[in-house]
């Protein structure tokens, strides 16, 4: 399968270069520190603050994972190889998305140590919100990756791609605040677009099908847009 050829290559690239290791180390260091601080100060056996913090750290590191995915192909001229091979732009985009998503799942897998630590020291750990929180975290990560992939498809420069995706994510993060500023339907609508608002519902233990659908549509939309941009390379 050509999609998996792309996925495999991207994963190789992540692990051949220091990117994956540095992102993993930074993420785990910060999240681990926050886990300790919150746990010791609040003395509550809950994962909600940790998952909240993890999402915020993710906001900061995910552009680093996605920035070079397409922009680098363009800069290095390897886009010419991909676009003259019998592979469609959607296969390229999906392959790259999968690679970054697998890497992300690995990172999430490593954070399982925190609920494990909690379960050792706490008699009645509430597993429900932890599970739903992880579902939310996985969906949120996928949403960030697809948005970052789209940003990367727009430019040749990795830094610009990273800045674009960071700005985009932050917007979708803080849209919810409009709810408090505007007491009308428009504010309500912006609130609905907020990834943070929807993510925090997962943390409370609610897996609402509307929220799941929102995330899935969000992911598919940006992947679709990225595909169109890659396609448009030949029209420029």
């Amino acid at each position, binding site marked *: 399968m050509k999609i998996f050829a792309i996925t*495999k290559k991207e994963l190789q690239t992540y692990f051949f270069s220091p990117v994956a290791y540095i992102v993993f180390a930074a993420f785990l260091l910060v999240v681990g520190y926050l886990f300790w601080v919150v746990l010791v100060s609040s003395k509550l056996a809950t994962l909600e603050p940790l998952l909240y913090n993890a999402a915020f750290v993710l906001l900061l590191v995910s552009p680093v994972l996605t920035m070079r995915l397409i922009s680098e192909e363009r800069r290095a001229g390897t886009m*010419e*190889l991909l676009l003259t091979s*019998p592979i469609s732009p959607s296969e390229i985009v999906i392959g790259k998305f999968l690679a970054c998503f697998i890497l992300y799942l690995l990172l999430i897998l490593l954070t399982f140590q925190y609920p494990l630590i909690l379960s050792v020291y706490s008699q009645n750990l509430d597993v429900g919100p932890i599970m739903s929180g992880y579902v939310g975290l996985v969906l949120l990560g996928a949403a960030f990756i697809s948005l970052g992939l789209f940003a990367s498809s727009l430019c040749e420069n990795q830094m610009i791609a990273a800045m674009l995706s960071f700005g985009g994510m932050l917007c979708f993060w803080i849209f919810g605040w409009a709810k408090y500023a505007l007491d009308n339907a428009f504010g309500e609508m912006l609130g609905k677009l907020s990834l943070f608002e929807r993510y925090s519902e997962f943390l409370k233990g609610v897996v609402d099908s509307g929220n799941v659908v929102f995330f899935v549509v969000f992911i598919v939309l940006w992947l679709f847009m990225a595909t169109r941009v890659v396609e448009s390379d030949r029209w420029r």
Partner: protein
Amino acid sequence: MKDVTKFYGNFRALDGISFSVQAGEVLGLLGPNGAGKTTAMRILTCFLPASSGTVTVGGFDVFEDSMEVRRRLGYLPETPPVYPEMTVRSYLNFVAELREVASKDFRRRVDAVIERAGLVDHQMRVIGTLSKGYRQRVGLAQALVHDPAVLILDEPTVGLDPNQIIEIRNLIKDLAKDHTVILSTHILSEVSMTCKRVVIINEGRIVAEDSVENLERQGGAATTFKVALRPASLDWKTCFTGIEGVRLEGEQTDGPIVRFTMALPASAAYDQVFRATVQKGHVFTEITPARASLEEVFLRLTKSEENGSANGSGATEGGKAA
């Protein structure tokens, strides 16, 4: 390729280009930088769509049956499309997967191109650490891995040192035995060494299309020599002027030695001229071919930009008639 025109915005990069290549042929696309060679190749490889005109490869239209065309093409862009962080072998494995090499042939094909491109000792090296010449070989290996019917090479020898150029040229000559090859270049000697037929492009138009020999013969193209001669007598000039079409220019006396440039028509029998001169007791101290005759044709065709179209169509027709 039929009546292909390509606009970049308002800029007309290609203007009604038509040419065809037979299976097993080696065609050279020749032209100064910016003539439209790369654009033509990108259209052939389905990387760019033509603004108008049709292009077919092996009976498949590059626009309608793009995937079928891509399966039949191997393409080496101007800069080899390599990933610097991958090893040669893992990169070729990736391209083989991308190019739909069947799993049963996989290892055999990758091994074969590694050997053919002379990369056996470098297959485990990271591409980023390789020299330009070896990257070019990796680029060639990449274009060959799915054993394509048609190979398209964009300036395959640019930026290489003389030894590497010779190696790559030999490799291309070798490849030409069982592939159809289209290569672009702005280096003339490359064309006469590797190609049977040449299409000369200038400013997006075809100014000539013919075999290398015919182009050289066309318009009595001459070969120019820089000559230094130690004459035995004052009438040395008669040795040359007696022959039809010979022109002597820029005569300079430097002590006992006379230096001049001599243009010999393609029809002249070189050896007779030289032998006759030597028999009279004159001594050649230096004979340097100043310009290969193909270069003269090229210069003549590409320089005259004002009357380029008139000259061009004439040349093309002349070529086809011959």
